[in-house]
């Protein structure tokens, strides 16, 4: 049954894709199998459950493959298969960009690259134009082809990280699990990478692809051997549509200008832009009152201008400040540092002390534990807006107690947010681990809005330490990130 469908699809293809017919595209396509290990946020010292899945990859340059970040996340072993080759080749992740769901892979075995052909990147396709999606949906062994038209070009949240939005193209071809990472072609060139769809009763025939400006951005970013992540203005804005609002700010009724409402102290714009400014132009492009600019003939959000920048680039603003025009130049000297709202693909950080498990708050933690303390969720949702980062880099939560005589009366501290240890404010996990490692007769841990401290005697801790480690099989008492791990005390 496979063969006739395959041919029918192929005959359609010839019309548009003369330069990369189905036999040609096979040279550029592969199936990726990922054996992944998911992290365990409840028992963070455990290596976690094995899982994984499959997706699609394509040859992006002479000896490199491209796919989605979510296809290769948490990978322990990656294998790739070509259509007419029985062999499974081992691949490794060279660069992974969780914020735009793209990854570049290496395959060491030169045999893999025999008779392969890299695909070229095309432009942003026009609305209503046809595109063809290649891949291995639902885990099939043979290549599948679907066809659709470009329905919409818009900014949209990338589901892999949840926190990031970039340019995204909606097509009406079905994109199913397994299609992820596969090329979407037009006129023989890649115009997108299939990456997510809308399922369920809400929508039908809605697929999304990552367009070439985002792919190109990723490829350029990694040219220096390091992925710097997307640059971001990190400011709050408000459209200036209300005429009274415009008049009060001394602006003419010309549908131009976007109000700046918040410039957090961690923003690259801090010290350059202020709340109350009105942005009139970005890099010479007029900003309309709803925050849109005209790029390549398309109306796009102003953020797209920043999206196309790289670390070290500058952006110039024409600003209306205190009813006078000024110009400001902002340098993108760093990516936004606080990414706790994005899904994390790093091993979870934690510290176990006196049988208490301390973990930094992030999306994975929120999804794992059903916290009832509204403060925990509040600090997750408003960490940036309320500039909580001025006091701490990480919100550290006591997530669990490993029951032991030493902590049997401490249940009330579960879900507490750590404030101080022995009088010193704690900014992050490293400081917490250091405070616990410091010799003291007693350890007084204060929690946010908790009227009493948690107190441990050193002698009690010493007698409990090995007991707790053995009883609960705590393989390692802390993990503080990828840098060298130091044991407490």
């Amino acid at each position, binding site marked *: 049954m496979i063969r006739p469908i395959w041919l029918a699809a192929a005959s359609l293809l010839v019309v548009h894709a003369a330069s990369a017919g189905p036999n040609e595209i096979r040279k550029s396509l592969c199936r990726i199998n990922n054996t992944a290990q998911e992290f365990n946020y409840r028992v963070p010292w455990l290596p976690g459950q094995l899982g994984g899945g499959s997706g699609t990859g394509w040859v992006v340059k002479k000896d490199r493959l491209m796919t989605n970040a979510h296809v290769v996340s948490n990978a322990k072993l990656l294998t790739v298969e070509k259509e007419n080759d029985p062999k499974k080749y081992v691949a490794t992740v060279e660069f992974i960009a969780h914020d735009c769901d793209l990854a570049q892979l290496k395959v060491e075995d030169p045999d893999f690259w025999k008779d392969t052909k890299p695909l070229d990147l095309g432009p942003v396709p026009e609305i209503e134009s046809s595109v063809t999606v290649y891949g291995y949906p639902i885990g099939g062994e043979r290549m599948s082809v679907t066809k659709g038209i470009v329905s919409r070009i818009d900014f949209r949240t990338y589901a892999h990280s949840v926190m990031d939005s970039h340019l995204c193209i909606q097509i009406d071809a079905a994109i199913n699990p397994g299609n992820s990472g596969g090329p979407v072609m037009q006129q023989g060139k890649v115009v997108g990478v299939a990456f997510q769809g809308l399922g369920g009763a809400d929508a039908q025939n809605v697929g999304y692809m990552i367009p070439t400006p985002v792919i190109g951005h990723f490829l350029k970013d990694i040219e220096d051997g390091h992925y710097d992540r997307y640059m971001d203005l990190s400011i709050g804005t408000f459209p200036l549509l*209300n*005429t009274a609002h415009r*008049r*009060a700010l001394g602006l003419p009724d010309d549908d131009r200008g976007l109000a700046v409402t918040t410039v957090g102290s961690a923003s690259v714009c801090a010290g350059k832009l202020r709340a109350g400014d009105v942005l009139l132009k970005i890099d010479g492009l007029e900003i309309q009152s709803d925050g849109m600019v005209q790029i390549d003939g398309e109306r796009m959000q102003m953020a797209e201008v920043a999206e196309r920048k790289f670390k070290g680039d500058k952006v110039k603003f024409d600003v209306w400040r205190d009813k006078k025009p000024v110009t400001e130049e902002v340098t993108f000297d760093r990516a936004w540092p606080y990414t706790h709202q994005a899904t994390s693909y790093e091993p979870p950080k934690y510290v176990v002390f006196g049988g208490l498990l301390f973990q930094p708050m992030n999306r994975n933690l929120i999804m794992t534990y059903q916290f009832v303390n509204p403060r925990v969720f509040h600090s997750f949702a408003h960490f940036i807006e309320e500039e909580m980062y001025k006091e701490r880099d990480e919100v550290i939560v006591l997530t669990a107690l490993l029951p032991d005589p030493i902590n049997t009366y401490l249940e009330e501290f579960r879900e507490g947010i750590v404030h101080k240890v022995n009088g010193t404010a704690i900014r992050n996990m490293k400081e917490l681990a250091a405070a616990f490692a410091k010799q003291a007769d007693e350890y007084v841990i204060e929690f946010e809005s908790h009227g009493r401290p948690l107190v441990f005697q050193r002698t009690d801790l010493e007698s409990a330490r090995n007991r707790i480690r053995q009883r609960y099989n705590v393989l390692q008492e802390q993990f503080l990130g990828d840098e060298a791990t130091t044991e407490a005390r």
Partner: protein
Amino acid sequence: MHRTAFLLALAFLASGIASSAEKLSVVRVNVTTQSWDFHRPWGKRQPLTRRAIGAVLPGNRVLVTADLVANLTYLELENPEGGRKVPASLVAADYEANLALLQTEADSDLLTGAPALQITESGIGDQLSVWQLENNGRLLVTKGPMTTAEISAYPVDGGFLIYRATMQIQGRDSSFTLPVVNNGKLTGILMSYDAQSTNANIIPAPVIQHFLKDVAGGHYAGFPRIGYAFSPTRDPSLRRYAKIPDAVTGGVYITEVLKDSPAAKAGLQKGDVLIRVDDFAVDQDGNFDDAAYGKIPVAHLFNVHHFVGDKVNLQILRAGERKSLDATLEHRAPESYVSDPYIIDRRPRFVIVGGLILQELSRQYLKDFGPDWLRRAPERLIYWDRFQSDLFADGPRKLVFLSRVMPTSATVGYEELNHLLVTKINGVALQSLDDVPKALEKPVDGFHKIEFEEDPKTIYLDAAETQKTERQVQMQYRLPALKFLE
């Protein structure tokens, strides 16, 4: 309609029996209530009629739960047999203790001959009876043992003593409030019942007696509160940290003292260890030994043993040293909170300016999001309400917020704004909604400048245009008024 006809027919049958039979100590209570719609603060929701059973007390008065009569519009009492109804009125209601006292019109003889119930306390193991009425006026008695006396949550806030009994109460008409009887005497009022666990939560005699005594005093003062929070001291490390001497076996660690509360005025401080209240020792969990109910939280001493104005003695340890503090108990009115824990029988306050609806945050507003309001109401509003004593210790007195926008020609671009905390209008920092009209009298350069805690931080309205469009907003949305500030 079918049901009414049926009841009338029964009433004929019953009338002959009732004259000869002994009169019951209960009466049907028919209540119509209508609550204000806090999300459309200018209007009331549709009226709701409920039927309950009231307990007849001396002086031709009837006791029910306050929940039943909240936002009352019409109240009548009805013969147990059904049929005869007379209008009645509310003598007093306490929504915190969930009790209300009713009376008939002066010249009514509806309750004449109905024996008044005496009140008695009950103990664990006592056989309690819940009284319901059949349609024909016969008493339906369900019995079950009292299992627990404990401090538990009441509908609006805080905790008071409850009796808990296990019994299988059947579904009957008029069952919203039911008397609970022990040996022919009233021992409580049924507050809630869970058919699955067959647990009945009962407002107990001590709370009822406190309420009735307070009402009898002429000036109703309410149940007092002390105003501190505590942590148990079972943890030996905490006992050592708090310098509790070995000779002291009990005590609780004070974790919070509410501003201006009786505890604060008495000089109680965070970190103190409370070891004794009057003659009662406080144990490590914060309980005292009650003669009737055994170990229950000391809150019961402040709330129920005592009345507003009473003095209580607190024995504490501060850094290991014994001190004696005297507190004068007060009731805390819901209006004195930053976010009122309940607003019943009162209209919500609001001001509409140029289509922007400004209100004051209250838990009532949050509860109007429905039974799952904790999930559905805006997270920030829940957070402010929950941590108000912490977050707003230094003001403002009330949180003024923009609940939503009624779109008009003047609010183009503002339509989507909702649930934003308003900090200033025309430069005036708002302490409550009362400050809004004054602030609006002084526009800056012809504009009203409205500032929020959150984005978009600042918006403007044309002052002259706002005034001109006022009538238009009122007509367009058929609003009875553009503000209510009493």
